[in-house]
């Protein structure tokens, strides 16, 4: 053990000394499995929490923007068929060359797009799991309640950017159900798929080893898509780093150069 500690201490010194001004970007993660050379052992088995669940804790990233650009990447067109309302909204967004993306105006990415833009941290407790997001327009969080509460009824809840989420375990898979999302959100940045306020997102998190997690996202939105569709994204652990602060400090200096041609309002989704 002493040898291992020495290696880790040396590694710590090396990393910290080279990171002046970089906050905790090179902070060694405590308590994670390591190889003899001190590097994180990303193929180690998944650790478990005191209540026996797989521990999903850590900072995660898709390591690619592919699914931020196109959540349906790799799926067949027949699997992702838009309703006439959604097709019209998508066409307007494409015709306007994506300039109306709320994220460009420092608004949240929405669910599930927020998972695929930048790093997020999972903090897991028995009754609540937190998803902490470092987006470049602001640090954001989602609360996934596992205390047995039900999702709020649509009639009882104000629609929000990040919705309302509850979680449960299906074997070793953490299943998160989210509803209560705002009408007209963006599911895909480049492909501009809209969703409606009827969107029900299911995210299935399955950590396969210490360094890897599958995230299967199901989009069920009868107002926007003819049938539900699912895509699975490989998420990778980001060890020995930390989230950074991010707010929209420079936004005013950017938007003063934006095109001044406000969009026609997007038509709302069909009412129930």
């Amino acid at each position, binding site marked *: 053990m002493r040898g291992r500690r020495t290696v880790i201490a040396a590694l710590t010194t090396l990393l910290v000394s080279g990171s002046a001004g970089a906050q905790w970007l090179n902070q060694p993660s405590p308590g994670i499995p390591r190889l003899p050379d001190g590097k994180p052992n990303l193929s180690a088995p998944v650790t478990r929490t005191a209540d026996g669940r797989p521990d999903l804790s850590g900072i995660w990233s898709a390591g690619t*923007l592919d699914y931020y650009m196109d959540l349906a990447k790799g799926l067949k067109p027949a699997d992702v068929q838009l309703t006439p309302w959604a097709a019209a909204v998508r066409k307007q967004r494409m015709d306007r060359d994506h300039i109306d993306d709320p994220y460009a105006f*420092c608004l949240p990415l929405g669910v599930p797009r927020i998972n695929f833009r930048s790093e997020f941290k999972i903090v897991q407790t028995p009754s609540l799991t937190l998803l902490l997001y470092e987006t470049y327009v602001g640090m954001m969080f989602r609360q996934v309640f596992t205390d047995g509460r039900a999702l709020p009824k649509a009639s009882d809840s104000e629609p929000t950017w990040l919705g309302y989420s509850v979680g449960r375990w299906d074997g070793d898979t953490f299943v998160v159900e989210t509803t209560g999302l705002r009408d007209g959100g963006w599911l895909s940045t480049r492909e501009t798929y809209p969703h409606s306020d009827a969107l029900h997102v299911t995210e299935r998190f399955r950590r396969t080893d210490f360094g890897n997690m599958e995230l299967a996202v199901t989009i069920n939105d009868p107002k926007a898509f003819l049938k539900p569709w699912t895509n699975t994204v490989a998420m990778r652990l980001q060890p020995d780093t930390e989230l950074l602060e991010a707010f929209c400090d420079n936004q005013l200096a*950017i938007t003063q150069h934006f095109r001044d041609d406000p969009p026609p309002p997007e038509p709302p989704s069909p009412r129930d």
Partner: protein
Amino acid sequence: MRTRFGAAAFAIWMLSTPAPAGGHHSASAEFDATKRIKITGALSKLNWLNPHIIFYIDVTGDGGKVANWSWELPSPNQLMRAGWTRTSMKLGDMVTVEGIHARDGSNHGMAMTVTLVSTGKQLFAGKAEEP
């Protein structure tokens, strides 16, 4: 490349490329990809802030007249994860910037490459060298 999703829009979204392109929105709201600019000046100010870094350079033109230009870079968080810091470029440094011009015609653009004149080193591209 004549699709709706133009080359510059794609570039500004591409964060995995070595060029310091990448942003949080489509470039076309702000920049004209057909208007390429290459300009050299001295760093006068650096706002190392989200969602995009903005740096300012003083460009001396014919007759000694100085114009101030502002340039956008990706999120500082992305660059810091690649090892770059706010001291990678220092006030007074002469830099050559290649990028695309703002649609409003002001002295503003999106930087695609930033090169330190004294060494020829390209800044904010790929991984920074270990100190």
